[in-house]
């Protein structure tokens, strides 16, 4: 609860800083503020509460995911300082939008009411529409913003339609009331239709196939830092909301939709992976790999009646942190070489051993190689899926993990075995810090997964 309010306040402060001419100070203030909020969030641990007529619910699930999102938010803010150095006059605007995105994400992990849920989705999405199109003179960025906006608002429309149908049937926006209604009576077809529409819009937001077509273009066109936010904060928040919504309100409509979930999961993993194989652009490759990761997370969703929140959290953590490291390195490389192609990474092993080693670790973690966090995340998700009887879909996922090694290692191969032209290479301390910290977390969560597995 407090987390959400303080974060919104921090966002407002960033906007107002423009007027008070505090531009130079705003970055440290934002980082410090987020760190403090992170600390406050931790103190909420174990205290369950509901606020504003059950609009916002604080429980361990929301605290854990808020913590992860805030951590990623801190990383993004740290990276933002240098990323927007050419537009220093607007830094407070950018920071404000970044923090508002975070607000939307926080709302998405702690809603108790469909209205709040919709609000969270919209705050998150609108901020990201702006950020996606924020490079005003870059055609691709404009295209990304436009595309994301059109598709996103279409999905929001469907979502709202679904919410309206649910409200019409049950007479309430409250998750608990909806759940009670569905288990006490036999819901009519309207209820199922409403849940189905909400499902479609959620699949869109998490970029699951066949609603994934927006993702690669938007990821590629947006400024890399925004892409990093979409791939980490937005995706993780959407998955947390997905889980919360279906486990709290729609668990009774789950059986009729089971086949949809299974088909979507298999499709998402497979399409994401096989399309990623042929990409030249690192960002686009990460976009498709992100789609396949969404598929792995879907494995947690399809078995959610077996309480898989912990597995989803661990996987989100591993995926979010390794993506953050990968995107941070991509930003550094793109800044120095002006290219986002995989060729730009050629010879990085010789020029910047630290960056190359870090990216290797991030890629290995995404590919699921022990003892890194990604491996344990995959293990956990697979094991939950098998426990709940989804053996065959897990086999599909395993086969896909093998395929994924190919494209992850393509970058590693480029870094270590190809030669490059010598150019000056600068690496800002903020970037080194974020990358180093992410790598540390990947090892920590991989070697002592017990720190996170017993949480929820």
């Amino acid at each position, binding site marked *: 609860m407090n987390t959400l309010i303080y974060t919104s306040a921090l966002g407002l402060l960033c906007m107002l800083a423009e007027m008070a001419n505090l531009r130079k100070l705003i970055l440290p203030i934002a980082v410090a503020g987020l760190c403090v909020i992170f600390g406050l969030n931790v103190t909420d641990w174990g205290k369950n509460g509901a606020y504003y007529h059950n609009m916002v619910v604080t429980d361990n699930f929301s605290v854990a995911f808020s913590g992860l999102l805030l951590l990623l938010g801190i990383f993004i803010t740290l990276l933002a300082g240098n990323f927007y150095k050419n537009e220093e006059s607007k830094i407070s605007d950018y920071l404000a939008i970044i923090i508002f995105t975070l607000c939307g994400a926080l709302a998405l992990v702690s809603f108790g009411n469909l209205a709040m849920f919709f609000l969270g989705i919209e705050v998150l999405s609108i901020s990201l529409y702006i950020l996606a199109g924020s490079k005003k003179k870059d055609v691709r960025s404009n295209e990304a913003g436009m595309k994301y906006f059109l598709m996103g608002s279409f999905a929001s429309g469907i979502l709202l339609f679904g919410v309206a149908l649910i409200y019409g049937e049950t007479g309430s926006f409250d998750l608990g009331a909806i759940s009670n209604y569905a288990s006490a009576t036999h819901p009519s077809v309207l209820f199922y239709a409403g849940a189905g529409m909400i499902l479609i819009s959620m699949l869109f937001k998490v970029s699951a196939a066949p609603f994934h077509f927006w993702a690669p273009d938007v990821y590629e066109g947006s400024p890399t830092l925004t892409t990093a936010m979409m791939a980490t904060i937005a995706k993780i928040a959407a998955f947390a909301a997905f889980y919360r919504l279906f486990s709290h309100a729609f668990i009774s409509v789950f059986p009729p939709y089971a086949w949809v979930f299974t088909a979507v999961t298999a499709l998402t993993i497979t399409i994401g992976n096989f399309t990623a194989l042929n990409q030249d652009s690192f960002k686009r490759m990460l976009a498709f790999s992100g789609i396949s990761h969404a598929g792995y997370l879907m494995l947690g969703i399809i078995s959610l009646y077996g309480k898989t929140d912990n597995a989803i959290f661990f996987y989100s953590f591993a995926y979010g942190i390794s993506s953050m490291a990968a995107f941070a390195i991509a930003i550094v490389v793109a800044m120095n070489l002006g290219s986002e192609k995989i060729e730009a990474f050629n010879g990085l092993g010789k020029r910047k051993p630290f960056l190359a080693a870090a990216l290797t670790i991030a890629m290995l973690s995404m590919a699921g190689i022990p003892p890194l966090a990604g491996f344990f995340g995959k293990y956990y998700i697979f*094991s939950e899926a098998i426990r709940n009887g989804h053996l065959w879909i897990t086999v599909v996922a395993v086969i896909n993990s093998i395929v994924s090694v190919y494209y992850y290692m393509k970058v590693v191969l480029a870094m270590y075995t190809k030669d490059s032209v010598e150019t000056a290479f600068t690496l800002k301390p903020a970037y080194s810090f974020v990358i180093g910290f992410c790598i540390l977390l990947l090892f920590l969560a991989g070697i002592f997964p017990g720190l996170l597995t017993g949480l929820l």
Partner: protein
Amino acid sequence: MLLLLTLFLPLVFALLTYLSGNRFAKYIALLGGLVVFTCCSFLKLALVHNNLAPLVFVHDWISNPHISFALNIDGLSLTLVALTAFLVPLIIFTTFRKEIENAKAFYSLVMLMEFGLLGVFMASDGFLFYIFWELALIPIYFIALLWGENKDAAFRHRAIFKFFVYTLAGSLFMLLAFIYVYQIAGSFSASTLYSLNLTDKEQSVLFWAFFLAFAIKIPVFPFHTWQPDTYKESPSAGTMLLAGIMLKMGLYALLRWLLPVVPHGVMLWTPVVMVLAVIGVIYGSVIAIKQDDLKKLLAYSSFAHVGLITAGIFTLTHEGFQGAVVQMFAHGFNVVGLFFAAEIIFQRTGTLSISQLGGIRTVAPKFATCFMIVVLASVALPTTNAFIGEFLLLYGLYEYNTWLSVIAGLTIILGAVYMLRMYQNVMLGETNSLTANFEDLNWKELTVFVFLIIGIFEIGLVPSQFMNMVQPSLDLILNYSLR
């Protein structure tokens, strides 16, 4: 405590090696290898002192899912730990003669590899075993990828990459199998898995999930296609690690994690595996005869040898098991000796093509003698280590099926054909422009060979002590496999 020390010292030395810089890296790595070997000798003393009862270390690691950090040293594990601890310093020493680019990374990867290998051989928790199994793959991937000597880099990258994807693919199915078994057993510990009662149908599927991983690593026909190119393209130290130690991971895993866990699955599929293994033996030998490239010949011969070991393990007899363990140990020594000889020849003549060589014996008598002994050991001449191993393996196979043992027994004849013919073409005859100035062994190279040859004859002449040590652990596994 000693177990932990033995396991983690290589990791510590991997760090130290990296920090010591390019100049001193090799000395630190060698020191590390020797310290680990010393620890391993203490382990042996401790095991004997314990009347061959397993030494165990168990500590809770992850509570949910329940995974413990469980290590276990019995006769079987100790054999492979000893093999690793003995060969790694030796392999490091073989690289002393030449300048290695970015030496600190190279040697620290070698030490990291030793860490992974020791973990595989010591783990008695399935999950821990899996982690080390994968961990051992990463260093060797980079060693092979970055320090390979072949000019054609693109080809090398493809070959090594194939190896990486192949082995990883296999192990993911093993992970799936472990997860499935865990859902039933609630634990990964070997003892729980050994006493599990799975249905025959489950066992028959799980068998393939496990076997695929192990078969690719060993490799068993038809999963061997990564092997020859990888052996050829890796730097010689990498090839020695791969052939000398790493493929034993697969064989060891058959004994430790396949036979006792899914005994009925094994019963069901043994005929298929037997046929595959024996095909591998013959196929490997026949292709080896046709090879002109020395390293590829050795790769195929190694492939034929491990086929026989696999067949021996699947006989589920005392002799088969005994022979498999002795031969695993022996093969480690012999194959390292052979690849080292190949490396020496390549360093001095710049070629590995058998038809271009000849007459080395006249200019390098010491090398010729050492190479001869290793060649004879690998064709299982009596008094050498491989003789004991192959004899027991064929005896076990004979108990299983006479015809199979006859066919597999051809390996001794075929092995003699290709190895001796190779020796003849490389070492005997007239010298030519390539070999006329062949330098004889220097003291460093001689030291390596002397150690290997001592090992070869020790096992060959007094195998009983060694076999007594592994017997209890093999009996245990055999009992579980026949339940």
